[in-house]
């Protein structure tokens, strides 16, 4: 049985996991154009909602996955609409040419 080769050189895809009413990692730095995968590993529903309104996952049920591509550099604060004490930050760095 052949198994597809694993590309050892591919960088880890940026990911945020939601568990126990918290975003992990709470702060994540990526490069502009990268896509973050948000996964709800919790037994409750959550949202990933930007404080500035620039993105909103809407309702993310248990095991729900939402991806967002960040196209502009900057620091984005976000929270969960259902549990506003849950907060996170995404720092999007410009890519130097």
């Amino acid at each position, binding site marked *: 049985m052949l198994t597809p080769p694993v590309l050892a050189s591919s960088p880890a895809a940026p990911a945020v996991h939601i568990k126990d009413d918290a975003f992990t990692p709470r702060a994540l730095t990526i490069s502009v154009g990268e896509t973050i995968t948000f996964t709800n590993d919790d*037994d409750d529903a959550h949202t990933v909602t930007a404080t500035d309104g620039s993105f909103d996952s809407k309702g993310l049920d248990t095991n729900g996955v939402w991806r967002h591509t960040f196209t502009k550099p900057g620091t984005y604060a976000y929270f969960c609409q259902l549990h506003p004490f849950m907060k996170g930050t995404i720092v999007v760095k410009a890519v130097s040419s």
Partner: protein
Amino acid sequence: MRRGSFLEHVAWTGAGIAYALGAGGLLTGRAVAAGANDSVEFVQISDSHIGFHQPANPDVAQTLQMAVDAINAMPAPPAFVVHTGDITHLSTPQQFDDARAILSQLRAPLIALPGEHDVVGNDFKPYLSNFRIPHSTTGGWASWDNNGVHYVVLLNVFNFEKMGLLGGEQLAWLAQDLHSVTPATPVVVFTHVPLYALYPQWGWTTEDGTKALALLQRFQNVTILNGHIHQIVTHQEGNIRFASADATAYPQPKPGAAPKPGPVTLPHTDLLRAIGYRRVEIADGDIRLEDRTLAT
């Protein structure tokens, strides 16, 4: 401004897609009937989270059905049933359909407040397509008088980042609304999130709630009934009594008793002892609360 979109939706839904309670009509009819024996009984239910499918309660539709059946089995139908929010888990049209299919079986008018779970993604359309608060203003909040009692509905789930928050417009309306009410009139207030700082670490508070409480301070008998925290907690400040209600879906931990406020999973028989509904009886200005679980 997020509440702006709620105003728009209220405007276009103003013709009344509502079901079951036909705005003021039925309530007025009840008020006349209740006047005959000078006592009023209503029921509070809360936090049904239709659409939730986790071990804490794999069948939230069934437990809401049990609550509705128990209310319908009361010797006399209550004047009305108030649902203090989180009717659904994620505000989807299907979840609202399922909730309405059960709640429409109530043999009493229904007043259903939205919780934050009913407006997820800043989308009010599914809620407003299914439920409407009678006597409501364009902002959605409401008041009415029934049998010598002044009832107020306050909405504190529309500012998502600062939930709970009433906002200046609603507070100004409340001041105006209470202006002509005499201090001896019993006042009953319905909200979703607790109006006082019950446990701010978990968001169990209303940021500008103290401003509403200041307006209510001059009344001799105020009862504030809310949901959101999935458990019975009572509290007294002067003449103001607060009482959070059980959910019909699943319990949450006591304040600070767990690392997070998420659903608590119990064996089924214990679950039925931790969820339920509340009878409220008002006679001669005396407001009596009786919480009943779904355990038989």
